[in-house]
Structure formats: C-alpha cells, structure tokens
C-alpha cells in the first residue's frame, strides 16, 4: 500500500511528499517527491545584481539564512576577485555559528515534537528566540537578515552587543543540559531512536551525504576544519562525531555541535571586542560598493572591462556542506548561479536509510535528517 506522507502532513516540516510503500507497519519502499517549494532561485538570480541575490539566499533556507548568505557571498567574492576585510570575516563566522545554534535548536524542537513530546518544542522555540533577538539587534531582521554584502557585511555590531551575546550563550549552555535530560535521560527516547535510520560511512560517502548525518557515521569531516574558510582556522573547536550512524548518534552530534558553536561564538566575541576596523571592503567597484544598484551601468561595464571569473565556495551549513558556483561574465548580473544544498542530497539517499523500518519510525528518521524544504527545492 502506497501512503502519501505529504505534501501537507505533520511529519514533512515543509512542503514535500514522502511516498511510502508499506506492508503492515513495515516500510518496503520510499520515494521522496520534492519541488513543491521550487521558486527558481537560480533563474531569478540571472536577473539580479550581485547584492540583490542575498535577499534570495535568506529565503533559500528559512532556518539558516545567514549561512546561505555566506555560501553565496563566498562564491560571488571569488568570482569578482574581492576579499572582505578581516573584521567582516569574523562577523561572518559569528553569524554562521549563531545561525547554526538557531538552526539546531529549531531542529531539536521539531524533531522531539515528532516523537510526540511537545514540551521541548516550546523550550526550543523559546531559546531560539533569544538568538533571533541577537540577530535582530545588529541585522535588523529576525529571519531574513540581508546582512552580508559582496566585500564584507552591511554594518558593525552595535555597542553592548558582545555582552548581551555572552549572556545568551551562558543561558543556552544551561538549557542544553535540560535538553539532554529530556531526551537522552528518557528510556523511551532511547528505545525510539537507537538503531534507527542507520547509514554507514561507506554508503554516506557514496551517496554524497554530508553534515551531521555523515559525522554520526564516524567520519569526522567538517569543512570548517578540513578546508577552513573565513577565519575558521583561527578559532578553536572540535569536530563533533559519533559512531552509531543512527538517529541517536545524529542527536548526539548536533548537541555537541551546539556546544562547539557556543565555544566558537565566545572566541569571536573576544576577538571582536579588541579589534575594531572596517567591515566593508574599500575600492569596490561602484555598483558593488554602493549599497544600491544605480542606473547606467551597462555602458560603464563595457568601458571598464571588469574582470571575469567563476567562483566556487563551500560552507559548512547547519545541515551539511552547502556550495555555490557563480559564473561572472563581466555583466552586472551573474551569468549563472548554482547552489548545492546538503539536504537535497541527504534526502536523495532516503531509500537507503528508511527501508526496513516501521511507519512509526518515519518521523524520527526524517527528523534526524533535518529537512529544510526551502533549500531542497531552491
């Protein structure tokens, strides 16, 4: 019997459809259907200025907006041969980690709620709100930040921000203990999650699975360590790793990542306190340096013969490895942008970690993948 779990279904957390073939309560086949949220971001980008694409990136993944901005900005800066100032890089790292915290807390909330436990959902939303408050205090937005610019970030953090941020980090560290008590301390949780959705390291690599799913299989692969971008080579942190490759292992990896993120945020705050400086690169081309896109660029571009190039950047987004490929042919719009979403790939491997389990296991397994449909469909 084929059962449609979606497009409107409490398990899907977004707009996609998991077609499940079941035999009694046993899953015999699955077929994820995506595309319900396809907005054609890659097509719209063809008609937008480099900076205007940032607004699209925020909507690419609605729980990890600023991380996606970083993905795109990295590729765009490569394509345009621009380097952001140091302070901007630190700010980006801080934003990435705050976003990772927000995204993982959101994941925790939704995942545990799928197991039928509603209190952690509200605890999670409550604590995530503090991070959104922090974001709002310097970007002006709570979900769609529009903070990065080609060549840096829009503005510096306001005074007093670092102290507030530290306070929130302390609060969060206490909450993580509570989260663990509610989940790992509960035998029912362990019995629901242990041994579910196993995807071993070899399969993970073959299927291109990245992020916490891969790290839960014992592969300590993290772009922040392996191929440090921005200033990740200057902060200290450990790569979270687990060996069981099941749902509990993914839970453990994400919880550990949150703790490491707090650690990184604290280091960035210390750096930011002592190193004032510009946050936007100087000597930007006119149509990038200005915060807007003025008229009359076409003739200018022809006369200036702006350098062309193709940029590629990979960023360890909360869900996994996000990559962007930006082709700059010298025009004011990128010729082609291509984004690689980690969830897209993790979802495409669904057959390999879902078949053989039971219908009741679908929510925990899918929850542990951390689906964000916005970035699957783009």
């Amino acid at each position, binding site marked *: 019997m084929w059962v449609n779990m979606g497009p409107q279904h409490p398990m899907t957390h977004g707009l996609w459809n998991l077609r499940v073939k079941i035999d009694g309560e046993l899953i015999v086949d699955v077929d994820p259907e*995506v*595309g319900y949220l*396809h907005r*054609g971001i*890659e*097509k*719209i980008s*063809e*008609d937008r200025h480099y900076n205007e694409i940032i607004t699209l990136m925020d909507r690419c993944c609605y729980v990890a907006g600023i991380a996606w901005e970083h993905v795109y900005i*990295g*590729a765009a800066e*490569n*394509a345009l*041969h621009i380097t952001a100032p140091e302070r901007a890089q630190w700010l980006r790292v801080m934003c990435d980690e705050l976003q990772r915290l927000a995204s993982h807390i959101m994941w925790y909330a939704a995942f545990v709620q799928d197991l039928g436990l509603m209190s952690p959902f509200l605890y999670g939303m409550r604590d995530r709100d503090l991070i959104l408050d922090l974001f709002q205090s310097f970007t002006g937005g709570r979900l769609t930040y529009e903070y990065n610019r080609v060549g840096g970030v829009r503005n510096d953090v306001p005074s007093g921000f670092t102290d507030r941020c530290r306070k929130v980090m302390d609060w969060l560290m206490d909450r993580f203990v509570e989260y663990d008590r509610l989940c790992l301390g509960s035998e029912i949780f362990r019995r629901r999650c242990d041994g579910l959705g196993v995807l071993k390291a070899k399969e993970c*690599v*073959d*299927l*291109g*699975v990245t992020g916490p799913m891969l790290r839960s299989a014992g*592969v300590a*692969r993290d772009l922040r360590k*392996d*191929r440090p971008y921005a200033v990740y080579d200057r902060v200290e942190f450990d790569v979270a790793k687990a060996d069981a490759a099941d749902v509990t292992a993914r839970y453990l990896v994400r919880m550990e990542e949150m703790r490491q993120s707090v650690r990184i945020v604290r280091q960035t705050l210390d750096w930011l306190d002592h190193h004032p400086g510009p946050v936007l690169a100087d000597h930007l081309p006119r149509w990038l340096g200005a915060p807007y896109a003025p008229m009359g660029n076409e003739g200018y571009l022809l006369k200036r013969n702006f350098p062309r*190039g*193709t*940029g*590629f*950047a*990979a960023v360890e987004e909360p869900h996994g*490895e996000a*990559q962007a*490929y930006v*082709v700059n042919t010298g025009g004011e719009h990128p*010729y*082609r942008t*291509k984004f*690689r979403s980690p969830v*897209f*790939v993790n979802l*495409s*491997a669904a057959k390999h970690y879902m078949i053989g389990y039971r219908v009741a296991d679908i929510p925990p397994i899918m929850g542990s993948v951390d689906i964000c449909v916005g970035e699957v*469909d783009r």
Partner: protein
Amino acid sequence: MATDDLATQLAPRAGANILAVEPFQGLTARVRFRPEGALDVFRAVHDDLGYDHLSMVGAIDWVDHREVFYIVWSDVTKQYLGLSADLTGDAPHIESATPVWPSANWHEREAWELVGVAFDHHPDMRHLLMPDDYAFHPLLRSFKLHEPEELEVKSRSV
C-alpha cells in the same frame, strides 16, 4: 604544480579524453574533458585520484553550447576538484555519472530538467522539481523570466 600532477595522474586511464587541466578560483583545479569519454574520466578521478565524493553536478547554457560541471571532493587530500565538459549539438547528452558516484542521481535529474542536458543510462530519469509534464527547461537563456505570457504548460495532469 598541482595541475601538472593531476594531468600526469589522469593520463594512464583517461589521458586521451582530457582536454586541459586549468587552475580555478576556489578549487584545486578544473579538468576539462571530452564528453565522449566521460565515464573513463569519472572512473579515473574516482579510483586513481581518490575523489570519492561527488558534491555537485550542474549545467550552464552558453547559448551556443552547454557545459556540464562536476565538483568532487577527496577525503584524503581534503580538496575539491572541478570537472567540466562542453556539450554541443541540438540534443546535448553525456554519460551519467551514477555508476561511479551514486549521489549523481538527483543532481542529474535536476540538471536535465532545468538545463536540458540528457544523461545517458541514468537509472531513474524523471522530473524532480517541475511538474511531470513540464515541457520547458527553465534555466536556458532563451527562457525569459519576465514574459510569462509566452509560456503555457502544454498539458496538465489532474
């Protein structure tokens, strides 16, 4: 020089199909190859160079031809490598990378439906993001964004 090393390493199995190995912003290098020998190149990159992880498959419409690019990652060298092939002709097609990297499955489905590059011997070539009977390839340059009146979905399944 990294690019020369790559070229020599690739030479025994796919030397004939390699057009160039060029430096690339953000990647170790980019290998341009002939689409006819795609599978050989993939195998060489996967087995000999150890790039066991396919990150991305994308296609670009350059109006006169189309380009397919692959980004692969090696856990040993911790490096990305780009592969790219230019496809010409009215019906551009290339061998599917799924036998070498199973993760190419959805990427190739997406590249086919958005840019119209056919992947031969793909195990499951269906529409992914678009409706099942969508007749256009939206990421072609000829597909204009601001002229929606020209676009009509030919048939629609209920």
